């Protein structure tokens, strides 16, 4: 047993907090992620993580809770992208890129001020790449409440959201306010990104958002199964990542462990790579599967 789980894993307080917050944020990210991938908004999702970086580093500078910084900046960023036109397909990447670029610049400034004027160390590392083991257990209630709220919003708008992702004309004909649904979704996306930012760091939260969802969509034939599979992959990757990171303190003679986020991202990436050949095999055996995006769509 000790080969797999190093002593003290389950009795450690920080590990318990990490497992709880990790699981909750992984589920929210996975659910929101399925819609993000289906809508082709991976870049927007990723850009919001960079905006969250700005918020996190700003919060660090002003001495506010990083979670508030991540969430606040994410919501502002989502609004800004909506304003300069992420809803239109054409030029969407450009609008995203401009917001992303500006946010990164601000993050650079805040991190610079953090490290120079406040004599704090580890700010860059902590904000960008996360430190799930140092989370304060008192943040659990806030994380859970925000997660539930996000899931409720997604559950309410799931039908118009899905319809507008596949055919905006049909959705408009049915009287769905595309703009409102899009904005609500961007806000949910911002909150999901903010939550996973405190777990695995703002730059890497894209992994939990896109990875499990992209993997699940390859296997699934319905929205429900995609959401469930994505959630399971997300939670398993997170827990296994926490475990491996905990163990890795004993791997090197320097007892310098590898970061948790590295393991989580690596597991998520691995799952996606493995899912390619697997889903191709199940397709040959005649299982139903979602149509693969056509060459044209993938190339643009």
């Amino acid at each position, binding site marked *: 047993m000790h080969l797999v789980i190093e002593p003290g894993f389950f009795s450690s307080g920080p590990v318990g907090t990490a497992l709880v917050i990790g699981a909750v944020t992984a589920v929210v990210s996975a659910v929101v992620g399925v819609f993000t991938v289906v809508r*082709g*908004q*991976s*870049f927007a*999702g*990723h850009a919001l993580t960079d905006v969250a970086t700005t918020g996190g580093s700003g919060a660090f500078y002003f001495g506010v809770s990083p979670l508030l910084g991540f969430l606040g900046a994410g919501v502002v960023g989502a609004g800004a992208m909506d304003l*300069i036109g992420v809803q239109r397909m*054409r*030029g969407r*990447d*450009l609008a995203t*890129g*401009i917001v*992303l*670029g*500006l946010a*990164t*610049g601000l993050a*650079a*400034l805040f*991190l*610079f001020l953090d*490290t120079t004027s406040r004599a704090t*160390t*580890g*700010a*860059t*590392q902590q904000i*960008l*790449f996360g430190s799930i083991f140092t989370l304060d257990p008192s943040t659990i209630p806030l994380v859970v409440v925000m997660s539930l709220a996000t899931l409720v919003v997604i559950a309410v708008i799931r039908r118009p959201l899905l319809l507008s992702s596949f055919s905006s004309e049909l959705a408009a004909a049915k009287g769905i306010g595309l703009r409102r649904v899009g904005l609500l979704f961007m806000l949910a996306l911002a909150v999901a990104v903010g939550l996973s930012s405190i777990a695995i*760091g703002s*730059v*890497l939260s*894209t*992994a939990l*958002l*896109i*990875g499990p969802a*992209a993997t699940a969509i*390859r296997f699934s034939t319905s929205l429900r199964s995609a959401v469930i599979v994505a959630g399971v992959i997300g939670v398993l990757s997170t827990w296994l990542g926490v475990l491996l990171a905990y163990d890795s303190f004993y791997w*090197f003679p*320097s007892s*310098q*462990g*590898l*970061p948790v*986020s*590295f393991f*989580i*991202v*690596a597991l*998520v*990436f691995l799952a*996606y790579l493995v899912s*390619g050949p697997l889903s191709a095999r199940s397709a040959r055996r005649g299982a139903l599967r979602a149509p*693969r*995006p056509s060459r044209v769509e*993938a*190339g*643009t």
Partner: protein
Amino acid sequence: MFASFMVNAWLIATIVAVVAGVVGFFVVLRGSAFPAHAIPNGAFAGAAGANLIGVNPLIGLGVFSLGAALGIARLSRRGRADAVTALALVMMLALGAAFLSQSTEYEPAIFSLLFGEILGVSSGQILPVVILGVVCVLAVALLYRRLLLTSVVPEIAAARGLRPERVEVAFLVVLACATTMTVPVVGALLIFTLMIGPPAAARCFVDRPGPALVLSVVLALVTVWAAIACSYRTNWPVGFYVSAFSALVYGVGRAFAARRLRRPVPVA
């Protein structure tokens, strides 16, 4: 501001701006903003890895950015291009974080790799940057017509027998090359803003591709020069100014385009 230790910074920034203006023009035209953002992050991991095992960072940068470019091109063939790009990006960043966690130099190393350190450029760094810069510009010059055709009128490009996938791979390799030379100078996260802001603004002012390309280079130069000057005066990171001025230039471009004939903004 033009003291001897600053000469290198001005020189190298000028080269970087020219390359970013040229390559960025096609990034904007082709809508490749996401790969242009992802590849520099791969380069970040390469530099961190090279740092760890003690080889020249330029080698790590080159290997990883090329690997990221080819990996994205390969995986995009089956699967959604944007999801694949996002995943490749975070995987590279996570590798970079892992490498850095094992190395002894920590905070300043991360910061300068991600956000650049143009004021600390040594004379030895100039030659490789010049060579890679010339290679990039030459490659774009060679690919110019093909890039333009496949980006703007893919149907005509196909009718002429051009293979869009091949052009895309070639372009991603050029992007990787441009990244390798620019990351040590302006940082992984900010070369992207330089490749997006000025070229996108240039397209708001001019329609014809040739003049737009020239204007894109000019705007990139102005952005970088102004950023260095402000950074020198205020001591704030140069990356902040580069991104702020890029966004400003783009904002002015959008406003100009909105006023000009009151027609839709030429995006993508």
